[in-house]
């Protein structure tokens, strides 16, 4: 990896319409966990990382996470961006922009985000990363305590976001190759992982530490029956509608650390899947943990979506995780090779 940093004029966008919930996020904040600061970060890390890789960013830079369509942006300077994810498509003059590709967009262009069936969250990366201050070693927005990201809150009309201006050598090469007076992108594209809306959504999970607290029939049902994402679902967690779990062990669980992907069983036997903005500790028994590689899929679920849980082992979950990391590393190398 070439570590030389190229200084460039600050790339900027202005938010004209902010959409349902648009926030600046990176890979999340672990430093605050002992203080009960939620990890936050992108809900679909895979898509966010693809968008970053497409613009040649070396690290996991801050991106904007949009929820469905509705947002409108004005590009104030010539800019190199990329998008990936689901729930929205980006359009300029009614022309759809491809995802998973670097896009050169000249100053003065208006970008519209329109609803797209399938998925929920779209990521917008910029060459150099969106420039917001680091708080507790992260640029993610902590909505509950109102800090981090862009002024500790969701984006609003009139907000102007700038890129850091520190381009990687790769970003600089991509920018040089695409710079025109019109919108421009290369032929290559990183394929996304967004599941189509018709596909049966299967989430791989590992049995949780208290899975033995429930009767066999309930546990059997958990792995066989569909669950539906309720309307009561947000960045903190998803309520799942489906068979209720029956307890055989009525022991009280003392509050202990939980993490995004934890599936808790609440007092009435219903399930809550914890997501990026979840509390750091919880006192409900844990039936399962979603495999890290399937969390991006969960980040794209919409209320009404039906999902099934498939059991895998911790060893398998770790193997899948390492495999995905290798794949993403390989992707970066492939893009670098295009610009040697």
């Amino acid at each position, binding site marked *: 990896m070439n570590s030389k940093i190229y200084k460039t004029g600050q790339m900027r966008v202005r938010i004209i319409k902010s959409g349902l919930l648009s926030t600046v996020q990176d890979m999340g904040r*672990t*430093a*605050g*966990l*002992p*203080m*009960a*600061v*939620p990890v936050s970060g992108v809900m679909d890390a895979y898509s966010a990382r693809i968008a970053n890789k497409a613009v040649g960013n070396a690290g996991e830079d801050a991106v904007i996470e949009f929820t469905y369509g509705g947002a409108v942006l004005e590009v104030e300077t010539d800019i190199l961006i990329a998008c990936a994810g689901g729930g929205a498509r980006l359009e300029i003059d009614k022309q759809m922009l491809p995802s998973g590709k670097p896009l050169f967009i000249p100053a003065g262009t208006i970008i519209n985000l329109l609803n797209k069936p399938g998925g929920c969250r779209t990521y917008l990366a910029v060459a150099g990363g969106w420039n917001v201050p680091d*708080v*507790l070693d992260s640029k993610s927005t*902590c909505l*509950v*305590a*109102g*800090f*981090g990201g862009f002024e*500790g809150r969701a984006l609003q009309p009139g907000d102007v976001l700038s890129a850091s201006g520190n381009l990687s050598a790769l970003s600089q090469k991509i920018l040089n190759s695409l710079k025109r007076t019109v919108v421009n992108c290369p032929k290559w594209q990183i394929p996304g992982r967004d599941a189509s809306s018709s596909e049966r959504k299967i989430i791989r999970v*590992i049995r949780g*530490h208290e899975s033995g607290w429930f009767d066999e029939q309930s546990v059997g049902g958990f792995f066989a029956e569909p669950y539906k994402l309720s309307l009561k679902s947000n960045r903190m967690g998803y309520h799942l509608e489906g068979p209720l779990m029956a307890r055989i062990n009525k022991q009280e669980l*003392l*509050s*202990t*650390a*939980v*993490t995004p*992907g*934890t599936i808790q069983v609440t007092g009435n036997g219903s399930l809550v899947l914890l997501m990026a903005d979840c*509390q*750091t*500790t919880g006192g409900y028994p*844990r039936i399962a*943990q979603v*495999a*890290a590689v399937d969390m991006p899929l969960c980040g794209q679920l919409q209320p009404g979506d039906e999902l099934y849980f498939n059991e895998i082992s*911790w*060893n398998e*979950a*770790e193997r899948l*995780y*390492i495999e995905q*990391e290798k794949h993403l590393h390989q992707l970066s190398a492939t893009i670098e090779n295009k610009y040697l």
Partner: protein
Amino acid sequence: MGYLTFKYRKISGVCHIQSIVSFVEAEMTTSTHMALSIYPISEKAVTIAFGDSISEALMHRITNFDKLILERSLPGLQTTVPAYNTLSIFFDPLQVLKSNLPGKTCREKVSHYLEQLNETETTAIKSESQLITIPVCYGGALGPDLEDVAALNKITTGEVINVHSSATYLVHMIGFVPGFAYLGGMSETIAAPRKATPRAAIPAGSVGIAGMQTGIYPLQTPGGWQLIGQTPVKLFDPARPVPALLKAGDRVQFKSIGVNEFKDLQNRADAGTDN
């Protein structure tokens, strides 16, 4: 165990913070060298379970083990989360796998590391904890449920204040929302059930009672606790180098203040002169 030395005393603008050096020899000798109970909670974290109950001895064991981990850093260590009876360790799996620790998987490597640490744990670990005095203006508009709490317990409001502000509380863990401390040590003579209808917005700094627990709301949130007062101290402020005022193992005392002092301290806290 006993408190042996008062190392230093720092008096900040809004609250007193006192450092105490304590030795926790007795508990350590009985609990070391027993195999740890370790289970994964994700590909990137494991939890050590230390026991089934809430106790001061357990809390000291957890804070000491936490200290050990942070001092002799595990490769790829990101952070640790102490709780009532558990300690969770968060790490970067790729860095753990690259390490020379024995084992094939991350869990094996991390477990081995933790077991090693457990065996080398010395019997007398010096731990430093803080005694933090938090000023509270009880009753009135800042503590709208003080009279209800007194009536429920058939005592006067003055007695509620006296009981609440004369105890020393132990921070067992931080959880729920940023900077929220689970405090142990409240007298049952001032216990009160949660309100039937939760309030939509409780101001940051509100001091409340729920059942046998007392606590301070660090942020404005909805909540059902009986509010007996409010502190001008910021329990959580992301602008501070360490945003949370309290951490597991700290001790807390409340000091009754009048409404004028409350306003004065609040102005100083808002001006950022409290630290």
